[in-house]
């Protein structure tokens, strides 16, 4: 799935490790999501949305 997590991190000045720590996964998982090589579970998607204070669909959109 396409996502704008990298952009959101850039806005907040967070590293991948910071975000990973905040949502309880490894930095490698955040990296894989940003590179669109891994689609997160609903639970993680909700955690990411809560972290960025937005809705899941604001972050993710299906790849065509």
């Amino acid at each position, binding site marked *: 799935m396409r996502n704008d997590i990298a952009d959101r991190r850039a806005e907040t000045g967070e590293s991948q490790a910071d975000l990973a*720590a905040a*949502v309880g996964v490894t930095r490698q998982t955040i990296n894989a999501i940003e590179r669109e090589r891994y689609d997160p579970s609903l*639970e993680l998607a909700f955690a990411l949305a809560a972290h960025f204070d937005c809705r899941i669909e604001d972050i993710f959109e299906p790849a065509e």
Partner: protein
Amino acid sequence: MSEHTASATTRPSTRKRYKRIAYGLLGAGIAALFVAIALDRFVLGVALYWAGGLGMGLVQRFSPVELYDERDSTIDRKASQVTLNVFAYVFVLGLPGGLVLAETGAVTLPGWFHGATWTLFAIYVVYGVAVGYHKYRS
């Protein structure tokens, strides 16, 4: 969800530490086995090896954080499926092929061939039971 997010602040570093402990225990057990074999203390070596494996299991079971995240689980599931597929081909094609070659006298099958066959058979029986169980549960 907020609990999930808030309590996760120190998780990765803690997870890494516990993973190192878990794999360290297993590694120590394996090393102890080889050292004990070299010193002709095989029983002691096996005991230490088991202790290392048990220690790893206990750390994984009782660590205060989950040692593997969801991507690890996904990778593990995909790798398991690939492994089962690869050995399905070996089992389906290799076993009859080997038996035919033995029957025609082209080769004499070694003892390990039959052992490997029964091992693969057992794996797929367990796999079938596991699939049935999870189908029943979901």
